[in-house]
């Protein structure tokens, strides 16, 4: 298949008409350059959105109980709603399929001390699923497990900052930390990409907290993630249904906005989705427009090239060139120029993004860049584009009648 002579012919032709080839390549290179930069900027904007939402699971739903504001079913307004362990079970029984992870949570503030060091931290009593909901990573030791829940063990998993604050010289694992007067054994250290505040936290098993803080089965809030197979609309209706079921369970008026509050990330996701979608569409339209302009440009130049080479093509045909060989020459030349020029444009575009990227963060553009798949996609598109641009002129060239081309004028 590889025909060295054919390539020799094509390079000779490109080389002989350097200015012409450069000019036609420039159109395409510029189109791709713009395309890459636009795409990179769009990606940067998306990254900014994503970061605004943190690294928590973005399919989170948090349910807070509060005080009723309306009388309902003979019950007075101002009644405090209190969740218990059975309410988590209720959610699982009702919506088992739709729940991915779930944890009950008790929040406290504690003073933690180890040897001479002492500080105040947020204490979160949770279940093992919480690790996936918060996207925590255990850097040392382990997380809370089912055994801790069953046996109400006094163990603590501390955030990186807590570790750095209190355990200056030694490893925290296996040491006893004092939390507001009660010693807990540190079994793990975790990190959270979301930042320092999320690492200034201590986790303990929820059953332990319930035992220590009142010997009851109260929980402060429910934190769950919905099944990621659901789309945003399904997630939203799941959220509303969950709210309604819980309101019924606690005899809360449907219009009561404060007794049971459900914070559904799907709401924000939907807005971000719409925004990034329209952004992508705009970028694609502009990008494709530029690309088409580039293709039309190169097609134009190829038509001109064929016109200019009419006589040469006529000579070749008189000497025995088949129509196919004429098409190959023109087509491959077009594809070659498009691909090389397009690639140069792409490289320059990526380079520009690489260099200018960091200084764009103030404009809400973070880490602008193009993905590998886009690079492959663009290369493929370029080859196709070159073929389209070259096809008509090549066809025209192959139909040149030698007798017309060779007429003495």
């Amino acid at each position, binding site marked *: 298949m590889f025909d060295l002579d054919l390539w020799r012919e094509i390079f000779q032709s490109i080389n002989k008409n350097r200015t012409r080839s450069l000019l036609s390549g420039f159109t395409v290179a510029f189109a791709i350059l713009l395309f890459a930069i636009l795409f990179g900027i769009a990606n940067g904007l998306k990254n900014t959105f994503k970061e605004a939402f943190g690294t928590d699971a973005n399919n989170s739903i948090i349910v807070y109980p509060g005080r009723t504001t309306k009388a309902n079913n003979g019950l007075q307004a101002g009644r405090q709603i209190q969740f218990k362990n059975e309410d988590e079970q209720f959610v699982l029984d009702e919506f088992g399929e739709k729940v991915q992870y779930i944890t009950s949570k008790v929040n406290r503030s504690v003073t933690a001390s180890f040897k001479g060091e002492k500080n105040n931290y947020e204490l979160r009593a949770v279940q093992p699923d919480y690790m996936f909901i918060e996207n925590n990573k255990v850097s040392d030791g382990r997380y809370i497990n089912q055994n801790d829940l069953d046996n109400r063990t006094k163990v603590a998993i501390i955030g990186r900052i807590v570790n750095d604050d209190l355990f200056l010289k030694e490893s925290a694992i296996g040491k006893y930390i004092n939390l507001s007067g009660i010693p807990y054994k540190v079994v793990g250290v975790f990190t959270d990409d979301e930042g320092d505040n999320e690492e200034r936290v201590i986790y303990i098993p929820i059953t332990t907290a319930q035992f220590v803080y009142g010997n009851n089965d109260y929980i402060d809030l429910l934190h769950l993630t919905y099944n990621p197979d659901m789309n945003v609309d399904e997630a939203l209706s799941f959220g509303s249904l969950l709210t309604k079921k819980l309101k019924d369970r606690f005899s809360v008026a449907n219009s009561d906005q404060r007794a049971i509050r459900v914070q559904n990330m799907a709401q924000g996701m939907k807005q971000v989705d719409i925004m990034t979608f329209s952004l992508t569409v705009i970028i694609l339209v502009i990008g494709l427009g530029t690309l088409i302009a580039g293709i039309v440009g190169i097609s134009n130049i190829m038509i001109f090239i064929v016109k200019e080479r009419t006589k040469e093509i006529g000579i070749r045909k*008189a000497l025995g060139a088949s129509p196919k060989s004429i098409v190959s020459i023109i087509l491959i030349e077009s594809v070659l120029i498009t691909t090389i020029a397009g690639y140069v444009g792409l490289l320059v575009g990526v380079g520009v993004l690489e260099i200018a990227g960091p200084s764009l963060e103030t404009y809400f553009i973070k880490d602008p860049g193009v993905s590998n798949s886009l690079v492959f996609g663009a290369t493929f598109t370029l080859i196709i584009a070159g073929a389209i641009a070259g096809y008509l002129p090549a066809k025209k060239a192959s139909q040149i009648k030698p007798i017309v081309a060779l007429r003495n004028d």
Partner: protein
Amino acid sequence: MLKINQLHKSYPIGDSSLHVLKGIDLTVDEGEMVAIMGSSGSGKSTLLNIIGMLDEADEGEYILDGLPIKNLTEKKAAVYRNKFLGFIFQSFNLINYKTALENVALPLYYQGMKRKERLEKALFHLEKVGLANWSHHLPKELSGGQKQRVAIARALAANPKLLLADEPTGALDTKTSYDIMAFIQQLNDEGKTILMVTHEEDIANMCKRIVRLRDGVIMEDKKVEQVRAEQYV
């Protein structure tokens, strides 16, 4: 070698059509050197184009070396042209960005010959026309006579059965013309069949047979005493 029977060709001009060839009968044997003469518009170039498969007849029979040339696909015509015919043009028609050697090698490229082999063969033919030293020059660096020699070498490269020359000396001065003619005669002496269109009497007389066309029909077809070109050189 070549047999033509009742060949007709007309070109559309606006609504009407121009009947250019009105029933041509011509037979050329191997080793002949024929001049086709006629004033402009007599149909001599059209006849040559049809013989050269660059154009197709409307009616009539054309047999080249036993092969009927009729309703050829473009691809087939390309193969036949490459295999059977060598063209020499008035305006040389060399490819201007290729060196003399590459120009001569071009028909061999279309035969699918390997690069090394075809360059060797091309050089051999350039040597034959006395331009081995100019093999790496571009056409623009050559004189008219030299360009025509390169063109002849190119026409010979594929070792065709029939050489077709369309006013081969039309763009050359008298001395160079005779020079080229001497060379073409020499090719004919070696056995090549040559068909040439010209409107110059002296050039025609250097052939062995003259066919005169007028208004699309053959007026006269006679053998002549060949005038050797060497004596003028």
